[in-house]
């Protein structure tokens, strides 16, 4: 089984700017309905299975809210 990339979204660092959402080529991400502790609608995984680990979301995130790791699906 090919190892795959796992995204880690840090809700409490997220400011809901939507850059990750806009730059994901596969519409994997979205913004949550609820607010986080900072008062923003944070990023959430909408269709994790579509993610192919291209890292565009993480590259564009201004708030270090997305990190990626190689590993088994969790």
């Amino acid at each position, binding site marked *: 089984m090919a190892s795959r990339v796992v995204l880690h979204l840090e809700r409490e660092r997220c400011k809901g700017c939507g850059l990750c959402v806009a730059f994901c080529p596969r519409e994997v991400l979205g913004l949550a309905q609820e607010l986080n502790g900072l008062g923003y609608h944070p990023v959430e995984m909408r269709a994790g299975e579509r993610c192919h680990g291209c890292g565009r979301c993480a590259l564009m995130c201004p708030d270090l809210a997305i990190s990626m790791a190689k*590993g088994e699906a969790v």
Partner: protein
Amino acid sequence: MSSTFAPPEALTKVPFHYCPGCTHGIIHRLVGEAIDRLSIRERTIGVASVGCSVLAYNYFNVDMQQAAHGRAPAVATGIKRVLPDRVVFTYQGDGDLASIGLAELVHAAARGERITVIFVNNANYGMTGGQMAPTTLLGQITTTTPSGRAVKEAGYPLRVVEMLATLEGPVYLARVSVHDPANVIRARRAIIKAFEVQLQDLGFALVEVLSICPTNWGKKPVEALSWLKEHMLPVFPLGEFRAVS
């Protein structure tokens, strides 16, 4: 499970105070990544300037000095002359670097000071609420150009990199942007180079990074990136303007 993309060690864990979508955050990360990549965290001294990034000293996980508005290149010169084997960088906005601090910048460049300057051009003064910067585009509305920047009153946008390229002191001069992932990657490469030439003791290096200010531009972050691409790129062309072979 091995991490392939994680916050660099050269950044602290302190959350940024920047507005949602502000690309100062991306640029911080790129600088942190460059420091990590070159393994120079413990011998790097950063200089924060006055602008939205004034608190940069809280974010870069290296020794930091906070400089007076515009004077970061002079402060960096002071540090580097005393500690020539350390790595010294400044992180400055366009108001700080291109307006009040222009003389210190040009002279540091002309002297070929061995420092690395990260120059964040967001076409306005972010911190004080969106006034005109030297890099503000013609016609751009800011709080001090309420009818749009007009040549007759406020002159032309300043192209810092092109101007510095006439000097002999700089060994690396590039303009990059962070408006999409491909450009972020290019920006990262440029920033690494700008540190490398310092490590090689070659001379002055500066990377201008085109950046957005969604708050003061009055645009959503994604819109702001498009505006950058559409309006700033024609005035501020990307590329390496001076590079060592």
